[in-house]
């Protein structure tokens, strides 16, 4: 096409050419060879600069660029993408639109075709477009794609809000950076404080027989955490409930993933989906022996029962700034155990003599 391009063509012709290019390839394949020229041309023929023709040097350069673009072998990925794009473009347009001059259409019109569907009844429910084709490139199961799409959409939405928030205080960049560092440190401190509190609490519980939980199993060293979990989350003081909750959630997710990857049927058994050897003669003991029944918290992992429940109290607490939360935990520690988080010491007396103060700064 480019070969028939006279260097100094009259303007009329120029414009004609211009139009042809527009109609011809624009929507079909923007990234191909004709593109640089089109851009260049449109610059040249803007009405204000009607005298600026392409010089021979420019032309030479342009032709060389074009030739280079053409000579460069496209990568397989590029080719595949181009083929896909071309296919999708062609598949998405009706033939009645793209080939109205078809003799086939004329014949159909002669038979009385006036658009719509074929057939005698001319049902409204009949599909008029040909069946669409969806190439499937991997071996993902049915439903995974829509599942994945949903997750992607959610992630994108989340990322979007995050960036928006970040952009808001872009002006005080340094400030924000410092604050972030602070906050990160505080969160670490908060987790540490919560851990201490948890430790103190469980120590306290095993000493105190009045508390209803953890009596028997408390003897075992390793079950300390589980014990905390096996009671309702809401019985845990709100100041460190979040810690337990997030730990539980991670643990549950890990288990589920593990199950999914290693024991398809085991999951199904537990879900009550795949009965396996579901022998009517089996009694509870058999089942326990075969590992089919959840034996009370020993072999099978049990999550806190209210893990999925809404917890407004906790939400309110988590909603506070880190700083404030840390303050609360430290205060709680002082109040209940006479423990100063900053001194790392449990004072024997009510007045906590020897502790410089409530805040961290006072401990400097």
């Amino acid at each position: 096409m480019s070969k028939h391009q006279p260097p100094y063509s009259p303007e009329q012709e120029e414009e004609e050419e211009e139009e042809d290019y527009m109609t011809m390839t624009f929507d079909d394949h923007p990234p191909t060879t004709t593109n640089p020229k089109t851009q260049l041309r449109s610059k040249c023929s803007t009405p204000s600069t009607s005298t600026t023709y392409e010089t021979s040097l420019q032309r030479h350069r342009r032709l060389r660029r074009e030739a280079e673009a053409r000579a460069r072998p496209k990568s397989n990925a590029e080719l595949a993408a181009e083929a896909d794009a071309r296919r999708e473009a062609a598949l998405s347009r009706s033939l009645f639109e793209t080939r109205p001059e078809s003799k086939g259409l004329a014949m159909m019109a002669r038979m009385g075709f006036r658009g719509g569907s074929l057939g005698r009844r001319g049902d409204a429910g009949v599909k008029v477009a040909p069946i669409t084709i969806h190439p499937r490139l991997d071996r993902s199961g049915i439903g995974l794609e829509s599942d994945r799409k949903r997750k992607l959409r959610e992630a994108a939405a989340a990322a979007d809000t995050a960036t928006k928030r970040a952009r808001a205080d872009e002006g005080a960049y340094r400030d924000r950076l410092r604050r972030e560092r602070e906050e990160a440190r505080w969160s670490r401190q908060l987790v540490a404080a919560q851990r201490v509190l948890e430790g103190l609490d469980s120590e306290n519980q095993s000493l105190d027989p009045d508390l209803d939980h953890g009596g028997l199993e408390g003897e075992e060293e390793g079950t300390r955490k589980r014990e905390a979990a096996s009671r309702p989350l809401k019985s845990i003081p709100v100041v460190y409930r979040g810690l337990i909750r997030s730990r539980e959630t991670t643990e549950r997710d890990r288990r589920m993933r593990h199950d999914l990857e290693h024991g398809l049927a085991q999951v199904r058994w537990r879900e009550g989906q795949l009965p396996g050897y579901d022998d009517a003669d089996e009694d509870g003991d058999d089942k326990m022996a075969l590992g089919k029944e959840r034996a009370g918290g020993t072999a099978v992992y049990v999550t806190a029962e209210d893990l999925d429940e809404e917890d407004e109290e906790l939400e309110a607490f988590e909603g506070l700034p880190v700083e404030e939360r840390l303050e609360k935990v430290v205060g709680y520690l002082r109040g209940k155990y006479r423990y100063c988080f900053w001194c790392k010491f449990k004072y024997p007396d009510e007045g906590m003599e020897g502790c410089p103060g409530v805040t961290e700064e006072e401990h400097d």
Partner: protein
Amino acid sequence: MADSFKSLKRSSAEREASQDSKRVKTNGDSETKMGSKPNPYLAHLNDDAASPLDDLERHKTTAFQASKAEDSDNNPWTGHPHSQQYFKILKTRRDLPVHKQRQEFLDMYHSTQILVFVGETGSGKTTQIPQYVLYDELPHLTGKLIACTQPRRVAAMSVAQRVSDELDVKLGEEVGYSIRFENRTGPKTLLKYMTDGQLLREAMHDHDMSRYSCIILDEAHERTLATDILMALLKQIAERRKDLKIIVMSATLDAQKFQSYFFNAPLLAVPGRTHPVEIFYTPEPERDYVEAAVRTVLQIHASEPEGDVLLFLTGEEEIEDACRRISLEVDDMIRESDAGPMSVYPLYGTLPPHQQQRIFDKAPDAHRKGGRPGRKCIVATNIAETSLTIDGIVYVVDPGFGKQKIYNPRTRVESLLVSPISKASAQQRAGRAGRTRPGKCFRLYTEAAFKKELIEQTYPEILRSNLANTVLELKKLGVEDLVHFDLMDPPAPETMMRALEELNYLACLDDDGELTTLGGMASEFPLDPALAVMLISSPEFYCSNEILSITSLLSVPQIWVRPNNARKRADEMKQQFAHPDGDHLTLLNAYHAYKGAEQAGEDVKKWCHEHFLSFRHLSTADDVRSQLKRTMETHGIEFISTPFHDKDYYTNIRRALLAGFFMQVAMRESSNSKVYKTVKDDQLVMIHPGTVVTSPYDWVVYNEFVLTTKQYVRTVTNVRPEWLIEIAPNYYDVETFEKGEIKSALTRVTEKIRRRQAMKGGR
């Protein structure tokens, strides 16, 4: 036939005594049914009434009368005494679920012209109903046959064989079959099994189907292209021919659609022999359905009681891969946890028949006495969904995918893609688990996905196919108004438009849509129009013998065998036949070599095996060839060849290919590129890696344009652009091309031709 009836008189007299006892028992209720007709139980007193059929009155028979005729010592249809085998089979036939409703069927059959019959798999409908009709239509009196159509050739053949055994007659005489390229019927034939396509071809010459008194469309639920067309045609014919009876048989319960389509025809349903099937879904979508399928099979093997497993996958490669993985894992399981043995068999269409047969082998025995029982696992494509019945399956694993051919008129591509199956298909698959006893079906998708993502019904073939052939057939069948032709599911208008357009370019239809002489002739061939036109015009290119061979070879499955363990050797062997200019020519070379070996008296089977060629497909191609040859002879098409050493031998063939396939041409995108662009549709395609063409030209003609993982053109041959303009000037009218590389290339070629002609003229 009268002669044969006389000959059996003697033997019937000899057996009188034994029959007497039977008669006494049933005497009572027969009298009420027979009314005033002569008492058949006194027939032995009357020497002339020899045939058990004499007492039957057409369209007024009862199940009892028919049973009696079946019970008689002599075959009512041949006059020969019944064999022992016959009575044995008869006993099993009477146990079939459909037998209980024989009278009900007859009553309904008598009362209506069109009947919809629903019988689940295993009800015995395919073998029994046509026989019930036979005893009621009494074709020997009217001279009109009973036809029963099947969607598949194999089914038509095997059912015909079975029914001729059941009737104790020789296949090809009273009971026969007719399929494309093979006809096994004779002058005595009363009951004819045939493919639906074959009945359609017959109707082209007999618009009223006047040879038949009853037409049974079996497996209508499969909705093949030919069955859909037949239904629409029969609907028309039924109005003209009130004496023609039609039975539409379906295996699924969506029969309402058939009923309402056929003027609210009455419905008779017979329960199948099926057991309940429990269905399990996965809690989460699977990341890799093959992996999940393998895991599930192993899980079943480890934890479920005895019973065979059927796993549905999509294609040969996937199936072989899964088979290998399952076998390996099972070996481990046997070593580690004392699992029972398991034999794994693949099953797909292109598998040689003797290997397909292996799926019917018994499951292996336990390793030792008292050990865990063995089982077999069949990994199949959707051919195990309906067409093949395997007893003993208790577990079905269904990942929910299948391969489907879908033609799209917009780019004229035939896609062969893995896509989710329909709910109906899923149901059908699950049902396979309940053939022998209650079973389980494991669906590898969630219940929500089943409800939301699967379509209700599989798309009928008519919505998925190129209709060029169909339109040509319909024209020949006398259907003028294709637009308002009353199909059950009318295809997309664009598909129709493409078909008409293509037929017009092939000169099979004129601009008014009327059949041309060429079109009429092309419709006589059981081939796609492009192939038929190529064959008809081949004498003009002096190579009709060769084109005939190529056409036959293109009408059968791939003749090249490429086993996984010997790919390299297979490719080397193929190279021996390779012609650098084209796959079509390579096919021809292989065929010539095959015929050469045959003539040299070699063991062709062995020869084929050594050369990695499919003996089965080559011999089918040979049959096809002789059949097509006959058709050519009746139309006076000449058989011409140039001597093999003629320098234009192959060139002629390449040019002749274009006479039919000029619409399937691709041009190289740019020099040295691997990518081609299809003419007029501008699709980017690659030449399929199976080609032997080492240095493809800038222009190639191709046999198929398919979309698998990429867009490929398959079976290609080099051509020259001048030929295009010369052979198909209408299609290659430069004016009709959109601006682009192909147009400018063609313009240059036209220029060149003109200059050359001018030079010649100048001299």
